[in-house]
């Protein structure tokens, strides 16, 4: 007789289904909870036997579980051949299976050893004085049996899972009256009461209703997944559905996160294709160190967001959002402590799609569309500009530049219109997935192309992903995640550099003298604007210049996972990220940047991150509850090296950067290398008692190479507690709350994101020349070494509530937190007499406080019509508490010295980081106003009336005040999903309230100075006969200060995406399983008072010290896409 037992645990004997006592649920990681662990019969065992003797099989059971099995040779047929596969079943069940048909049954003797006796001996297993519960779980709608449903006895450790036929068994339940609950993802839980009697089998069937909202998804928490109901920390989850599928094609990961998760604030740096974004989880946590979150891709800490002040910098642009299955954002210290030293800014866990057992599928998705500028800002025409210039110079006692005849004859060239175009956007994805039980696969390829709306700019990405999961045996599993991507981005002078004569792109076009043609009569480009602020010709740059940035990246990992026992598992992961970056820059001699004979620059860098993670996890019942524990060790090494060369004055422009050696003017080649490493020991314990009380303890000990010899290591502990009030007996009688959980957590995490080597006493190259021989000498350089350099530490208290109301029609999470960062890494000036100018030290502190709410509702749930909404909103307040003795630090953004004074930001104790600092203007001086300033010239009618805040009757730098902060008072997103028959409609709004933006472009566009072309609004300027206006009189001598009218309210509400979808009837496309057409619009309507192109702007990139400035940023596009998605 042979036994055939499938992996899923369905035992078949001679074609007849036989009840199995307990089988491992196929859904990991929630393992079935066993009966009394003290009984040897209830220990778990996994067997994979092929035609072995019964004796060998019994020996295997005994060896594996450590139990003693006693039997008589006469009673037990030891030579009988058996074959079976059992995954994690009880010893009792295994023995029952092995002894099936022998007339022998296991029992326990008084010493606790297992005795095999003939069934007729009368020592029944029911003598253990327990009963069992069994039944079937079905879909309440269709009546279909539901597999993988967890049925648990509420408030106890007893539970079981359903098989494919919907049946479950919970055995060994002591007699009593219990509440029984059945749970399955996508269904509302079902509850019922049962009475268990000694030795009896109680039947309880369930009919589960499909849930409006996925009530209890699995959430990644770093190194493990847990059910949302078991979470103790603050974690926001963005599913693929919310993130990509139904929304418009998203080019970069970061912009796709905007408005999707409570407490995650995303500002696009500009509208350039592939541009970077500032991502802040719960506010700015640092001043000098990076405040961007850590991104973990498929379990590997892969990337930190960029702290660079370069708005183009986007380390995540090589991740294709279409490959993402889900994003989980770890926010509070309890959640992020598992990432210890890198957890202070929050952690974004990215899980890519993986193959599932079953039918092989091919999905094709293709969309294309066009983009146009979302908003235009008119500028002065030639006559208006020439009159402005003349007026401005006349009011400053300067000669006029243009005669009446010149003005009358001047043609107008619309430079912004010449620079802009409507651009193509296209996305193609093919994905193949499926697999056998032992090997699952997902292979996908994608291509994205986005032309910019400014000439000369585009973004191209193509990539390939292969994810594999395999089972070598029931105990050993492996998997890989492999992706290869290449991004090529052209950005020839399109993103802002500064204002004035350093302006690029749209800002340059808006400043360019409108009376001058872009080319002279001979057809050559004119190189600069013939105005007193000679900005380079933006049309020439966009057309002729090459600025190609490429990134090729391979990211891969391989893991192996082995169950030592069903409760104990080891996992080891090896991963690598290999990245190659290149820049090709070439300016031909026909444009300003090209100089006399062309100018070229080539840059190449390669980076490598190697990671090894090893951990042991335990899952099992201990004491009164069940324990999930994890302990691990990880090592990550990073190195990158770069090389560059540049040259100028080539014999021809034709060879561009590909023959730098032919330039007559060579600059020295450059190269560099940076290496760093992190070693970590980590651990986490999650203990759940009676499904009501959940305790989490997390700790990570990190060693980082970047710190001083005395401070390499630090320990980051956290603890959390959650109380599932909804499972308490006293909550069973009410119907308002379907579920209710309170959470509290407290912990400490770190920030190590500073440049390496700063603790060392570094020698740098100091050049001198003798005649024309250049000599490199060595001298101490850089900052003062600090051997005591250590981690920034953030301690955070978080209190939260998760609730489901009104039969799960409403679910909400509410969190409040208070975080304090201490030992801030701050570059502090030291007296020059020490030989150094600054030193990186751990001083200072700052705090973030805030609340976050996310709310999902099912507004309409009918057969043919559903309407669901999700709202998230968050508020954060940041305050600098201490700067190590300094009271304030003044900072100049990248507007050159066009602002006077250049410092327009301040870090001041007691104020938010990134406060805007300038002159308060209270309207314009009018004829007859009482002048409160010593110099009557300062009160000339038509000039800005600047507040003399220090009362010295003169306007000086001391009169500057804080004009606001770049941080919003609150922000969030609202999404609505409607389905009606085959149609679906998704409408997503994002909003931001209370932040200020320096409209730095208007320093050249709105001050009526007339050195360069200005916005059309300047026509409305003050004149003696037109006094009712906010625009000052023309004045070429007006200092370019940061006046408060240049600091604008950045609040907005935006219809971010609108997607209309239609499910095609399956017969339309032969062989297709599903097919869908969709039309999406992005950035459709924005309600804002901001007068620049777009309030979603941040020209100073990720640097937390500069919040909210628009240095003539690349405008956002309005995008319409049409696409089709077919699955075969």
């Amino acid at each position: 007789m042979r036994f055939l037992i499938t992996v899923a645990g369905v035992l078949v004997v001679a074609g007849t289904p036989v009840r199995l006592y307990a089988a491992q649920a196929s859904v990991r990681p929630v393992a079935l909870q066993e009966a009394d662990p003290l009984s040897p019969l209830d220990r778990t065992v996994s067997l994979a036997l092929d035609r072995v003797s019964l004796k060998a099989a019994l020996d295997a059971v005994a060896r594996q579980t450590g139990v003693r099995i006693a039997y008589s040779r006469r009673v037990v047929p030891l030579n009988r051949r058996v074959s079976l596969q059992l995954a994690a079943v009880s010893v009792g069940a295994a023995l029952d299976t092995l002894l099936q048909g022998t007339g022998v049954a296991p029992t326990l003797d008084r010493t606790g050893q297992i005795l095999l006796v003939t069934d007729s001996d009368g020592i029944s297993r029911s003598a253990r004085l327990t009963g069992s519960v069994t039944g079937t779980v079905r879909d309440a709608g269709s009546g279909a049996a539901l597999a993988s449903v967890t049925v648990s006895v509420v408030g106890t450790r007893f539970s079981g899972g359903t098989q494919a036929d919907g049946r479950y068994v919970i055995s060994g339940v002591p007699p009593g009256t219990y509440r029984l609950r059945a749970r399955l993802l996508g269904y509302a839980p079902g509850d019922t009461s049962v009475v268990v009697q000694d030795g009896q089998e109680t039947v309880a069937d369930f009919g589960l209703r499909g849930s409006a909202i996925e009530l209890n998804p699995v959430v990644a928490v770093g190194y493990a997944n847990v059910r949302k109901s078991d979470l103790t920390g603050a974690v926001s989850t963005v599913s693929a559905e919310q993130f990509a599928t139904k929304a418009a094609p998203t080019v970069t990961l970061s912009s796709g996160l905007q408005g999707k998760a409570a407490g995650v604030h995303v500002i696009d740096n500009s509208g350039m294709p592939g541009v970077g974004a500032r991502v802040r989880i719960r506010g700015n946590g640092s001043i000098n160190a990076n405040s961007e979150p850590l991104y973990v891709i498929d379990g590997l800490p892969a990337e930190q967001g960029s702290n660079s002040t370069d708005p183009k910098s986007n380390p995540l642009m090589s991740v294709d959002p279409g490959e993402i299955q889900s994003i989980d954002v770890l926010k509070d210290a309890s959640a992020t402590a598992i990432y210890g030293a890198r957890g202070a800014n929050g952690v974004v866990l990215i899980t890519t799609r993986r193959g599932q057992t079953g039918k092989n599928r091919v999905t094709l998705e293709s969309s294309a569309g066009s983009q146009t500028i979302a908003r235009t800002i008119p500028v002065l025409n030639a006559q208006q500009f020439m009159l402005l210039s003349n007026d401005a110079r006349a009011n400053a006692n300067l000669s006029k530049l243009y005669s009446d005849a010149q003005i009358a004859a001047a043609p107008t060239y619309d430079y912004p219109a010449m620079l802009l175009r409507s651009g193509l956007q296209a996305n193609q994805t093919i994905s193949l997935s499926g697999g056998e039980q032992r090997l699952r696969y997902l292979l996908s390829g994608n291509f994205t192309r986005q032309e910019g709306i400014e000439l000369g700019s585009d973004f191209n990405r193509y990539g390939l992903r292969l994810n594999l999961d395999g089972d070598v045996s029931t105990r050993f599993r492996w998997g890989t995640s492999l992706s290869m991507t290449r991004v090529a981005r052209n950005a020839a002078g399109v993103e802002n550099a500064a204002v004035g004569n350093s302006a690029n792109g749209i800002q340059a076009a808006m400043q360019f003298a409108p009376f001058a043609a872009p080319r002279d009569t001979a057809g050559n480009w004119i190189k600069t604007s013939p105005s007193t602020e000679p900005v380079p010709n933006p049309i020439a740059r966009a057309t002729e210049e090459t600025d190609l940035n490429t990134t090729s990246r391979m990211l891969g990992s391989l893991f192996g996972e082995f169950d030592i026992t069903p409760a104990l598992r080891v996992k080891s992961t090896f991963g690598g990220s290999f990245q190659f970056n290149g820049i090709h820059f070439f300016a031909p001699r026909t444009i300003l940047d090209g100089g006399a004979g062309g100018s070229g620059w080539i840059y190449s860098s390669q980076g490598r991150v190697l990671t090894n993670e090893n951990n042991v996890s335990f899952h099992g019942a201990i004491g009164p509850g069940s324990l999930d524990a994890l302990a691990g060790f990880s090592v990550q090494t990073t190195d990158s090296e770069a090389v560059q060369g540049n040259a100028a004055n080539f014999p021809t422009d034709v060879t561009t950067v590909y023959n730098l050696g032919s330039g007559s003017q060579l600059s020295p080649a450059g190269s560099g290398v940076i290496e760093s490493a992190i070693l970590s020991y980590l651990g986490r314990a999650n203990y759940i008692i009676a499904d009501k009380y959940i305790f989490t303890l997390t700790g990570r000990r990190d060693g980082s190479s970047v710190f001083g010899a005395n401070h390499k290591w630090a320990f980051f502990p956290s603890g959390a507690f959650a109380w599932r009030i909804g499972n308490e007996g006293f909550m069973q009688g009410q119907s308002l709350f379907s579920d209710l959980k309170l959470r509290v957590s407290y912990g400490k995490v770190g920030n190590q994101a500073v440049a390496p080597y700063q603790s060392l006493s570094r020698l740098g190259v100091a050049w001198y020349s003798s005649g024309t021989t250049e000599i490199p000498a060595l001298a101490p350089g850089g900052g003062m070494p600090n051997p005591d350099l250590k981690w920034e530490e953030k301690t955070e208290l978080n209190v939260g509530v998760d609730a489901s109301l009104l039969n799960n029609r409403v679910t909400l999470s509410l969190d409040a937190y208070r975080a304090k960062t201490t030992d801030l890494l701050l570059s502090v000036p030291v007296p020059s007499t020490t030989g150094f100018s600054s030193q990186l030290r751990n001083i200072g502190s700052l705090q973030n406080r805030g609340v976050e709410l996310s709310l999902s509702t099912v507004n309409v749930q009918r057969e043919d019509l559903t309407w669901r909404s999700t709202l998230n909103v968050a508020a954060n307040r940041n305050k600098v508490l201490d700067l190590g003795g300094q009271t304030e630090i003044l900072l100049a953004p990248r507007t050159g010295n066009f602002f006077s004074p250049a410092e327009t930001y301040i870090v001041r104790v007691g104020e938010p980081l990134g406060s805007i600092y300038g002159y308060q203007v209270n309207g314009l001086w009018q004829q007859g106003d009482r002048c409160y300033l010593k110099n009557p010239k300062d009160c000339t009618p038509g000039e800005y009336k600047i507040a003399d805040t220090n009362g010295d009757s003169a306007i000086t730098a001391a009169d500057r005040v804080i004009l606001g902060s770049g941080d919003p008072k609150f922000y969030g997103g609202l999404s609505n999903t409607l389905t009606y028959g085959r149609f679906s409609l998704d409408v997503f709004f994002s909003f931001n309230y209370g932040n200020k933006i320096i409209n730095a472009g208007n320093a050249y566009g709105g001050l009526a100075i007339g050195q360069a072309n200005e916005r059309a609004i300047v026509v409305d300027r003050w004149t003696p006969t037109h006094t009712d206006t906010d625009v000052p009189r023309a004045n070429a001598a007006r200092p370019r200060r940061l006046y408060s009218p240049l600091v604008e309210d950045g609040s907005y509400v935006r219809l971010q995406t609108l997607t209309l979808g239609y499910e095609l009837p399956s017969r339309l496309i032969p062989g297709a399983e599903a097919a869908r057409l969709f039309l999406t619009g992005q950035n459709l309507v924005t309600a804002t008072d901001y007068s620049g192109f777009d309030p979603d702007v941040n020209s100073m990139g990720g640097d937390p010290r500069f919040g909210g400035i628009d240095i003539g940023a690349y405008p956002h596009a309005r995008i319409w896409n049409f696409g089709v998605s077919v699955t075969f």
Partner: protein
Amino acid sequence: MRRTQSIASSLGLAALLVVCACTDLLNEDPKGFTTTDTFYKSGADLNSATIAIYNSLRGLQGQAQWTTPELASDQTRADNREPNLGTSGPDFLDWDASTGNTGGYWGTSYAMITRANLVLASGPGIDAPNAQMKAYNLAEAKFMRGYAYLWLVKVYDDVPLLLSPADQANPRPTRTPVEQVDQAIIKDLTEAEAALPATWPSSDGYGDPTQGRVTRGAAQMALADLYQWRSSFMLKNEWQLASDWADSVIQSGVWALNNDYLSTFLPKNKGNKEMILVIANSGVTTNTRSLFQLFYYPRDWGLDQGQGGGWGLIHPTTWFYNSYLSGDYRRDTGRGFASQGAYVWWGCSVSNVCPATSAAPNDTFADGPMPYKYHKSDNGTNWMLNDVDTPLYRFAEALLMYAEAQNELGNSAVAVQYLNTIRARARKGTGAESRAEPHDYGTAGELIDKLSVREAIYMERAWELAFEGKRWFDLVRRDSEEPGYWANSLRAHDPNVEKLHALATFKKRFPIPQTQINANPALTQNPGY
């Protein structure tokens, strides 16, 4: 079963190996640079550390350090259309402790002192086979330290006197009385003078050429400079010492006047016998570039055409441009970037936009002529590269120092002889001409008395050392000899100085940088600021 177990155990073994192998990973081992732990061990290290002091010296030609005494003097003014106070502020004497216009000397000088102290602290213990070069290196470091303190006292008076790395480790040093600093300067410079070579061998023994390394002559010039400053500004009456040190340069036979005044500054004549101390700018790459010439170069020579050109910032004041004796070669004015004159006018050569035919807003010359003695070899084509050496001490100054000292000592007739050697060279024009002007002092009825000759020497210094950053210090030190001279000269010669503020005499001395007082509260501020 066996297979999975072996896989699992090898996995565990691999993890274990990683644990064992990576404990060293946390020690930083930089590959792209070295650290002080591994340096200052050999003679070559010492020579390299010495050359690094020269690198700090380059700070003196930074924008603020170079243009502040230039523009603040009565000799030059900013372009009248320059709207940016960061650039034109020094012309209006619009500075305070925070503006940054006057603070650069502090950082530059203490950087030199830091590197010199490192050489002087570690050098004696280094076992260098080349003992001669080791002695030279130590003498160079002493010169550089003395010269740095000389700048500090001329600009700020009392400054912290820190003579070793241990002194510098004190985060709260106080200002040392200027007399004590001066004595330390004298000690450093006299020891350097004794040990430095009069001329260098062509190689430094470590493979590098030696042109531009400091010599005994440079130390003598610095000593003459110090005693001249002490005698005039501080009224210490040490004219004899000033005279002696200047005379030792004159008598050395190493240094001389070139025939052609303007050729002295030309890159093709680097290392000529008149240049006693310079900041060398190679013009080869940007490693030793300087932008100082850009302040003088006309803006419409290509800045706006993509060829760099200049910033069009510094013009001579009308008073100064008109003060030259007629025919003075040092005032020759040419047109275009190929001009060989000391001044340039008319900017059409590159831009073809000329003030007479168009209201070109960027035409520099609409605001007057510009100095052109710093004439790059590429005529300004590449704005990033500059091969003009920045002069700090020239032989002509030795002659004028000696003349001034002799005059103050009562030997006005001797002084006039030396003064006239300068005028004679100016008459030679390009070297071979024989002009009538500038005539010898005294031949047109000028008085040979102390005050008249003093005035003549100061004017000769203005003409001869024009745009070399000397005039401001001349105004300041003569104000001690003739109270009111500083303010009167500025008022009379440079209308811009009172454009923003009435003249306040405390501005004769520069403020201690506020950033330094913030970082070290033990520092006191100069009066008035």
